[in-house]
């Protein structure tokens, strides 16, 4: 079993050799105390929580992972891996800082090949291009199923709440039988569409798009604060949402490593500079999902997303001419009162 801590990771390589892949991006404050024995307090809760789960064996997925694959995304994560390596087999891929230029592309392509070699050695197996191709095909079908599911958010009046969309997206990162998971998601989408056509619709309310840091687990509190206060979340641009799902890996490209590198180097991650792909996705989603307001969720001490808020605000208020709000939160429940007030006022503003 292979654990990953980012959407940039290549689930296809482990999948290609028949390994199970699980997301280890932790979203609970349960192990933060343990993590703070080693890591600074003023650090992003996702990093602390992930590290803490690894250290305490409280997360079975972490416990059973034979290797953890990370990337040099943000500074916090890449330094954290150094310590995680003390109790877990960790491989860190060198992600370039920019998506522009052939050098970045070559670096990332070579890192993917290197990961393949490491996995082959670790698990004493052979990963052929044929294996990778069929893994790409499987992952693409899974993505398409999830994409068709969250595209239900385009419906107006809505068919399901944002909270329910998130539950399915988040849940999908823990499924091991991918074929089964695809079937389940497809069936769910079909069932909701049928019910919708029969007239089962939700009340029409202001339509919110959520962007920013990964959310899920305890940060669902933000979605709840929005939906309890008179709006519907219709689209998630975050890591757990469209960021990694929206684009497929090319199945036409001759070189599978180039196909993989191309896809993963186009993710609109705030660790990239510049990060135009995030704006491109927001631009499209705001129109397609008829969005009335954008909420940018920043985890405490996440520098890259926090700094990018200005850029996103300028784009959303300026080019798209709709309200924007950024909120900083963590994995505690202490700010639920403030979140409710902010979100209620934001909804009143629309």
């Amino acid at each position: 079993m292979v654990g990953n801590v980012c959407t940039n990771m290549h689930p296809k390589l482990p999948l290609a050799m028949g390994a199970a892949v699980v997301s280890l991006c932790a979203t609970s404050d349960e192990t933060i105390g343990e993590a703070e024995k080693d890591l600074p307090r003023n650090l992003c809760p996702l990093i602390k929580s992930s590290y803490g789960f690894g250290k305490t064996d409280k997360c079975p997925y972490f416990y059973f992972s034979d290797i953890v694959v990370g990337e040099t995304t943000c500074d916090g994560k890449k330094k954290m891996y150094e310590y995680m390596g003390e109790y877990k087999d960790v491989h860190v891929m060198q992600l370039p800082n920019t998506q522009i230029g052939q050098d970045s592309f070559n670096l990332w392509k070579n890192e993917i090949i290197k990961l393949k070699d490491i996995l082959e050695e670790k698990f004493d197996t052979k990963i052929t291009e044929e294996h990778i191709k069929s893994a790409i095909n499987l992952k693409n079908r899974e993505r398409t199923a999830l994409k068709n599911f969250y595209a239900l958010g385009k419906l107006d009046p809505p068919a399901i709440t944002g909270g329910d969309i998130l539950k399915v997206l988040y849940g999908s990162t823990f499924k091991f039988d991918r074929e089964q998971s695809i079937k389940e998601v497809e069936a769910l989408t079909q069932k909701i569409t049928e019910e919708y056509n029969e007239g089962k619709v939700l009340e029409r309310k202001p339509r919110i798009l959520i962007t920013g840091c990964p959310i899920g687990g305890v940060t669902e509190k933000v979605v709840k604060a929005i939906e309890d206060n008179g709006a519907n979340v219709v689209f998630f641009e975050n890591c757990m949402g469209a960021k990694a799902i929206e684009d497929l890996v090319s199945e036409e490209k001759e070189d599978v490593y180039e196909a993989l590198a191309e896809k993963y180097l186009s993710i609109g991650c705030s660790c990239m500079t510049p990060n135009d792909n995030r704006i491109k996705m927001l631009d499209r989603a705001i129109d397609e999902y008829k969005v009335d307001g954008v909420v940018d969720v920043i985890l405490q001490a996440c520098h890259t997303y926090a700094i990018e808020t200005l850029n996103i605000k300028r784009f959303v208020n300026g080019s798209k001419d709709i309200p924007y709000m950024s909120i900083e939160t963590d994995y505690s429940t202490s700010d639920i009162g403030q979140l409710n007030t902010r979100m209620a006022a934001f909804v009143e503003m629309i």
Partner: protein
Amino acid sequence: MLILGIDSGSTTTKGVLFDGKNVLDSVIVSTGSSPKEAMKEVYRILKKDNDVYTVTTGYGRNLLEGLSDKSVTEITCHGKGASYLCPGISAVIDIGGQDSKVIKLDRDSNIVDFAMNDKCAAGTGRFIEVMMRTLKQEISNIDSFIEGKNPLKISSMCTVFAESEIVSLLAKDEKAESIAMGIVDSICERTAIFARKLNFDGSIFFSGGLSKSKVITSVLSEKLMQEVLTHENSQLTGAIGAAVIGSKKIRG
């Protein structure tokens, strides 16, 4: 029918009785440990025999079950209330007991953007309250205490650290008045930085309990390099805003 606007703040609970044009009556009570009881008290005092439509705001806005007809956040209410008291303003700065906020308005006094301080006492009215207590001074006497004094530099933003900074300054035999002026200077500086993020021109309305202080108002204006207006009823801004929204609701 008259409109009753109630603002449940962390320190005081405010209420106004409004006929759609004028404030007929108002009351301010201490919130104490039960925001619900304080709201009920305000309701009792103002309602009397009148038939009222009640709008609640503030952090306890959802507690007046059965009596409240509508609840609206304090952000929206402050915007509306400030535009009622001072028509034509472009922004509101409210320094409350628990948080501080800046609200940007458009020409028609609709809220276009807002920012709130983060979850600690730094930059709130509570900061000044705690510091004045450390200096053994009543917050209501702040103007006569600090007027014309030179501010000492207070660099800590955290309420707890600032308190120990003050203790060290007192130990160096610095004047309590200059320390108090330093505290005001620091909170106004912080508020101005926070407000500038919203980029607005035009005059600013200052509300919340601290707006009663002429010195704080003028220091804030200096730091913002913009005109800062207050009103004798500025502490009632949220409650008035709630009443204005209620009036629109029932009279259209």
